[in-house]
Structure formats: structure tokens, C-alpha cells
């Protein structure tokens, strides 16, 4: 019989196919969706993030694990919603206007889910107005902005300014993407920055003070 531990290991090792069969199997055996999340997925992504920070794994392995995690979340999310289970913190994330890169952003979204956040993904090429609309609708605690192009960095700056101007002064804005640096984040008035998806979890927790 498969165990929660097997699911955790499968996610850590990025074995998507195993995850695909394990999740329904474990659910069928009577384990609560919330238990799968808190005892397998969240700890698994914790291990992945930790290994990444310790230079034990690199982006390829992380992407593979995140994809396995996503596979599990696809099944679990509707069930958690059904059961009325909502995580304590909500995060919004999107790639800024003019930019279509999302692999890195998706990884951050998955790591945040792995840290137990409710993550709403606005996708790519998201205009500032759309961010503001979504902030008003979902009342998130944090908003993540991603930009991968030197030429869309100004759109990130504009989005941060527009969100603040719209009066959303307390929501924490985190920024990231290959060309973004801590000093750029400070310059445009973001609350946090992180270089990779593993530290994006720490940055989010720090911004929230948890």
C-alpha cells in the first residue's frame, strides 16, 4: 500500500507519473486532501527549496519537482475548495505587461503553493489595471511581479507605481525575474525581491512577518 511518504518522495524526485497515480490512490484510501497537502506536498516543496538553497539541486530538478507538485495540486485544489479549506494567506502573481515569459513565475507560484499560500495566477502580459482589479477582487496579502526582459522592467516599475497610486499601500509587492536585482527592487519601491523560487518563499514570509 502506498503512503503519504511515497507521495512526498515522488514530488521531491519529480516523478510526475507516480504522483498522478498516487494522489487518487491515497484519496481513495480515505486520507483527507488537506492532509496530503500539509503532510506530503508542503514538506516536499520545503525539502526541494532547502536543497536548492544549499546548492544540492539546480533549476532543472526544481522545475521537475514543481511540475510534479502542480500535477498533484490540479487534483487537490478543487477538492480543498469543496471542503471549504482556504489557506491563511493569499498571493497574486503575474508577468508584467509586454512580457510573455512565465516558466520562472510558474515556479514561484508553485513554491508559494508549496508553502501553503492560496495563489492566484494572472498569467502573462498583465497590464497594471488588471493587477489592480484582481487586488480589489481577491484582497491578497502579497503580489508577485515577474519580468524577464530588460525592456519590460519599466512596465514593472509602472505597475508598482500604479498599484500604490490606486491606494493599495499595505499589500506587499515582491518582484523577481532574471534581470531584476535587489537594488532595482528598492529603486522602484517594491517590498521584496528574490533571486530564485526557493528564496521567494522566504521573501514572502518575511514580507508578511510570519
Amino acid at each position, binding site marked *: 500500500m502506498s503512503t503519504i511518504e511515497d507521495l512526498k518522495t515522488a514530488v521531491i524526485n519529480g516523478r510526475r507519473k507516480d504522483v498522478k497515480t498516487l494522489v487518487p490512490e491515497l484519496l481513495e484510501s480515505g486520507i483527507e486532501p488537506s492532509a496530503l497537502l500539509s503532510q506530503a506536498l508542503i514538506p516536499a516543496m520545503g525539502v526541494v527549496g532547502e536543497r536548492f538553497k544549499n*546548492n544540492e*539541486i*539546480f*533549476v*532543472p*530538478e526544481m*522545475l*521537475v519537482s514543481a*511540475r510534479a507538485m502542480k500535477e498533484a495540486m490540479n487534483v487537490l485544489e478543487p477538492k480543498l475548495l469543496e471542503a471549504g479549506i482556504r489557506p491563511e494567506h493569499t498571493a497574486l502573481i503575474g508577468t508584467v*505587461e*509586454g*512580457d*510573455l*515569459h*512565465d*516558466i520562472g513565475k*510558474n515556479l514561484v507560484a508553485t513554491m508559494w503553493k508549496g508553502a501553503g499560500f492560496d495563489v492566484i495566477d494572472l498569467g*502573462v*502580459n498583465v497590464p497594471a489595471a488588471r493587477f489592480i482589479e484582481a487586488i480589489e477582487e481577491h484582497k491578497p496579502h502579497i503580489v508577485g511581479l515577474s519580468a524577464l*526582459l*530588460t*525592456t*519590460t522592467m519599466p*512596465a514593472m516599475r509602472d505597475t508598482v507605481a500604479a498599484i500604490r497610486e490606486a491606494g493599495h499601500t499595505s499589500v506587499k509587492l515582491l518582484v523577481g525575474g532574471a*534581470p531584476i*536585482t535587489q*537594488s532595482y527592487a528598492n529603486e522602484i519601491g517594491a517590498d521584496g525581491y528574490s533571486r530564485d523560487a526557493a528564496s521567494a518563499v522566504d521573501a514572502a514570509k518575511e514580507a508578511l512577518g510570519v
Partner: protein
Amino acid sequence: MEIFTPDGRRHQREVPPAAVRLPLSSWLEGEHLPLNTRCGERGLCRGCLVRVDGRMLRACQAEAGAFETVSIPDASFRDNRLNGVSSFEIGTHRYALRTRPGIGLALDIGTTTVAGALWNLADGTCLAHASAANEQRRFGDNVLSRIDHAVGLGGASPALQSALVKDTLEPLIHTLCAAASIDPARITEAVAAGNTVMLHGFAGARLSGFAAYPFRPEFLGRRTLRSRDLGFTPDFPVFLGASPGPFVGADITLGALASGILEEDAPALLVDFGTNGEILLKTGDGYLATATAAGPAFEGGRLNCGAIAGKGVISSMALRGGEWKVTLAGELSGRITGISGAAYVDFIAEALRAGILNRMGRFDTDHPAVERAEVDGEMQRCVKVCGPLFVSEADVAELIQAKAAIAAGVMTLLELAETRPGELRTVYIAGGFGYHLNCAHAMAVGMLPDVPAERLHVIGNASLGGASLVLQSDAGSAADTLCGNCRVVELNQIDCFEDHFIDCMPLERIS
């Protein structure tokens, strides 16, 4: 100021009062001691790190007047001996040759390097071919930094155009003419291939349309300009090839003409291993084209010891009895300065085979060849190759992303065409690797899908070949037909790209 360059020389220069507040990198540039200002002096990369008082700092973020002594490490020194690939071959084709009196100039304008060939149009003989670094590099090593620079100036940048025309192409033309003992004034016409951004910059067109999605370039179709309007002294018509899409340029269309893919049975594939990673797939009923933005890793960019194959650069390597046997691109004069993209592919394939490296790009810490060393202030696992040259795990990770991008682009196009890799009849490999790429190694590390060796053809700088072909024949209209027949695939809009990107990351065969 006292400046030490990597060749061990000491240069004594006075910083005039007017220059004291200039960025150190800009001032050095003016003193003909240019640094690798890859990010366009924005303080984002490590290309201009110099050593001052025992610590490293970014020259673009420091003022020229602040220092007495500066030493430029090898990795930061922008080497103007940089060589590109000007060798090419032209496949069998069906175009009618147009012999006529005159001297023709074929150009391939790449982001990193430019290449040219001079032709006697009366008899179709190649008089000279050569390549040089694109001096626009000082505005950044990738097109986006240059676009950003132009956008800052309202869209078009005279400085960018002059860096290309005056500082790059004119010297290249003089080199070509000198080699052929021909007066530049005798050039009667030119054909230029290149990516869309380079052709815009060449024509002096606005780059704003490339800055963000949705992209709106000023032109994609073929154009004929006068060289005098571009800033050249001799006056002749300059024909720019047609591009299928905003980031899929005339380099791939003209490259396709030279490769012979138009005559080949479908399915056939052309991959250009450049910064932009353009791919063309011939299907049963037309063409699919895309750009995968692999980044400059295959040209040595962002790698600790990376370099473009040229004098003193390792062009291939093999592991024999625990020792790296290296081959150099040019003859050795002095020190070995870098590792080319093709040699990195050799390294990965050989290290993988020997168990030094695993399929996820990690070095085996128990292997005697693997050591820990400080790179950029961080402890990293490294393998020494020769002299001071090494490969770190971070280098391997960079190469993995680049190869995954290209392989995923190929797999996505194949999926759209409902074709399996094994069905490909012909695969052409063009671009920065020149003829150095070991295809067996490329397949072993999963840069390209597995196909039988006899179906692979390495064709060098195909776009220069294509520009040459257009110069000598009526092939130009075939390029237009190709553009009309070609569907440009935006990979961000295709869901399976991300899946393929992740699947293509491990260092293993793809089939």
C-alpha cells in the same frame, strides 16, 4: 591611472578633469581598453568587473577619477580579436545564376559577430571572407539591451547605427577588400542577412516595436537601401532580406536558401545555434518557424571561461585517460584564453560518459576530477580543463537551459506538425558553432533529437551563404515565397513548450 591588462601589460593614462565623473567603463572604452559591458552599463551583469585594491567592483558603477590602479581580469576584457564564423557552404539549388560585371558584398549581421564575403559577380568566385565582432556590443550583449538603449533615445539610435556601420562594417569591408586587393569603391552592390533587430538598427529604423509584446517592427519584407544613406562612403545598393516574423529574421530565411532545405523532402529541419536560437521546420505543406531565445551560452556568453572560437580558444576537447585533450581554433600564440560553445558540448558529453557529471548536471563529488573552488565569491564544484580554464556546475546549468530551450523549440514544432524526431529526413545545423560542433555529442546530451548521423549536416554560417547566393542568383524571390509559406510560432502561446522545456533539461538523448 595605471591599468593592467590580462596580457600582463601596464598602461599609464591620465584621467582628464572632464572625465573624472564618467563611469570607469566608459572612460576605459574611450582609451581603447574596452570591457565586456554586456548589460549596457546598467550594473546588472559581471562583465565589467575590475580589481581595485584587492577587491572586485563593477566598472560601470564606479567613477573614472576614483582610482590610482585598476587591473582588468581576463573575463572582463573585451577582446577585439573575437572571431565569428565566416565559413559556409551553399547546398544544391535550382536558382538561375546571374553573372554580370561587378563586385558583390554579402553580409551576415549577427548580434555578437558580423561576417562578410566579397564576390566577383562576373564569374561567381569568392574573393575573400572574414568576420568581426559587432561593436554594438558595448550597448549590451543581447538585443534587448540595445533596444532598451534605443527606446531611451526615442526609438532609433544614431550611436547604435554608427557602431555597426562605422565601427564594425567599414573595417570589415576594408579587411575584405585588402585581402582581395580591391578598392572598396569598386563594390557594386550588397546583400545583408541578419536578425530583424540588427537589420532595423542597420537601416536606422526605430527599435521601439521590439521592446514589448505585441511586437510591431517597422518592416519585415525585403528592402533596398543606398549605402550612402546608411553612412558608408562608397555608394551602392544594399538589399536586406525578408523576415518571417518579429524575432525570426532574414538570417534564417537566407540560411534556408543556402542550406538546400527548400529542395529537400519533408520533414526537414534547420537549427541556427545563435543567441536567438531560430528554428525552421519543413512540413508536408509549408514551413513552421520559431525563435527560442536560448541566450548567448553557445557563443560562450555568461560562462566562466566561455569564448567565441578564435585564436587561443579551445574548439574541441576529449577526455583520454583522465586527461582533457584540447584542440585550439587557431594556432597557439601565447596563452589559451577560453572555451568555445562547441567545446563545452564536448565537455558535457565526455564528463557524462565518464561519470564525472550526472544527467541533472551535477558533478560527482567523489570523482577525483571534481574539486571545490571559489568562483565569483561562492564555493562551487568545478572541473579543471587546462591551465586556468575550468567548468563549474553553474556553467553546466546555464548550458542546460540553453540546450533545453533549443531542443524544446524543436520538439514543439515537431509536435505541431505531428512528426516524430525519427522521421526527420535531414537536419541542418547552422550558426556560431561553425564546423566545430560534434553532432554525436550534441545528440548524447540532448541538444538535438536523435537522428542517424548521415542525416545531420553542419553547414556553418548559413545566412552568409544565403546572402551570397542571393547576390549571385535569382534566389531573392524564393526568400519572399518562403516567408509567405511560413507560419511563425510564438512559443509562449503553445502550452506544450514549457513541458518540453522541462523534459529537455536532463542531459540525455531525446527521441
